[in-house]
């Protein structure tokens, strides 16, 4: 048990911040475990989604960002689809990942983050994803140089890998959307964080 829970009256701040960013109400989570029960990735996770939501409810920010859970989420949305309280849990995972990045937290598991970055970099650079380049770049960045190299020649042989990247006439437009969305999220992040700080005390934040 690495953490002790200290309740200081300010514990609902994190819930409020995430509620505001996701348009969900995490006070509705009654910890039934249905998300953990259906999650395909729990065997690899430090804690299932249920416990992850509990840490948010209790405002345990350090413990939350220490979990590999959000980074292992495969975005299959089984949890979202079956949550008895209609909480978009997969979106909460997305937003926790995003918050960790914006707040400069240390990411507890490297590979998914690297994959996300090289994938989006490839898209941003070319307008379209160039799979061979992306994989090569991923291997370089993750330090796992020979990852899946066995598959490459087979796929080339099957004609499944294009030799050169495709580009799109809308590449510039796409880059602009990347820039604007990033700025928007940073601003929204600051704002919800400010609002959450400004309104201490009560259990639920979204409606105050």
């Amino acid at each position, binding site marked *: 048990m690495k953490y002790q829970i200290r309740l200081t009256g300010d514990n609902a701040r994190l819930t409020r911040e995430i509620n505001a960013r996701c348009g969900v109400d995490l006070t509705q989570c009654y910890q039934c475990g249905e998300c953990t029960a259906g999650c395909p990735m729990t065997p690899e996770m430090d804690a299932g989604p249920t416990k992850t939501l509990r840490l948010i409810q209790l405002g345990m920010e350090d413990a939350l960002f220490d979990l590999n859970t959000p980074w292992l989420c*495969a975005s299959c949305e089984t949890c979202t689809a079956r949550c008895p309280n209609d909480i*978009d849990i997969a979106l909460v995972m997305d937003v926790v990942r995003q918050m960790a990045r914006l707040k400069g937290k240390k990411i507890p598991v490297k590979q998914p983050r690297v994959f996300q970055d090289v994938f989006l970099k490839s898209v941003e650079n070319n307008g379209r994803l160039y799979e061979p380049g992306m994989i090569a770049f991923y291997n370089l960045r993750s330090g796992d140089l020979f*990852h899946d190299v066995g598959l490459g020649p087979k796929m080339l042989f099957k004609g499944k890998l294009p030799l050169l990247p495709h580009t799109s006439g*809308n590449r510039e437009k*796409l880059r602009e*959307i990347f820039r*604007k969305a990033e700025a*928007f999220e940073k601003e929204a992040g600051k704002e919800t964080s400010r609002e959450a700080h400004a309104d201490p005390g009560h259990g639920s934040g979204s409606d105050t």
Partner: protein
Amino acid sequence: MTYAYYPGCSLKGTAIDYHTSAMALAERLGIELKEMEDWVCCGASPIHQRNPALASGVANLLLSLSKGISPQVAVLCAACYHNMKKAEVEMREDGKKRSEVEEISGIAFDPEVRTRHFLDILDKDYGLNALKEKVVKPLSDLRVACYYGCLLSRPPEIAFDDPEQPTIMERLLEAAGAETVSWSHRMECCGASHAVPLTHAVLRLVNDILQSARAAGAEVIACACPLCQANLDMRQAGILTKFGVAHNLPVVYFTQLLGLACGATGKEVMIEKGMVSAAPMLRAKNLL
């Protein structure tokens, strides 16, 4: 029947067989899939994992490219469908979200636009009876396990069939004469893009899925998503190494099977592209 067709990156790369077979099928059915110009990548899962607003912004750009062709946007890839449909539904129902996304993408959202998966188009617009009429080589004696994966029907708001017990692929393949098996892992996650960064987890998930399909007596898995196909097909070698299980179960796109049934050749539907080839089995059944 003309649709604005958004292929997405995989369909021009690793899933070229999905694209090619869909075009062959569409041609035989008289459905025109007119490719949108200058399309970009939808960003798949990584895009909303990094920034949900970015995902919606890009989806809005993609939807806008349908202008001049048709407000009906045909999509084959489940991840593309998921991103675009989710953004579309969200923008139609939530005015605040809509103006945010319009601001980020610099593009006005057209509420008339509809993202449609090709399965849905075949079922609702084309119809099972019309499809049956086009079948020249029924897929008799072929036991197919239909695999839906996650993104076609989650969240339930974007589903075009029962989100927990879909039957659309079974209905289409049965119309083409195939026998479909009832199996448990039709909607279990294959691990999606974790195939690269977390291969061990994907091997575990894919192994369970293949085991379930085989236990149900399937001879082939039909799917509707490039990533599902890639994981279920390409990872069989890794499963053999890791778990010592040789599944040898071909994984094809539903469009490949329907294409064959409607008279396309094996070459036209690129049936040879799979790592575990479906060709020998299909040839033995006289379907090639």
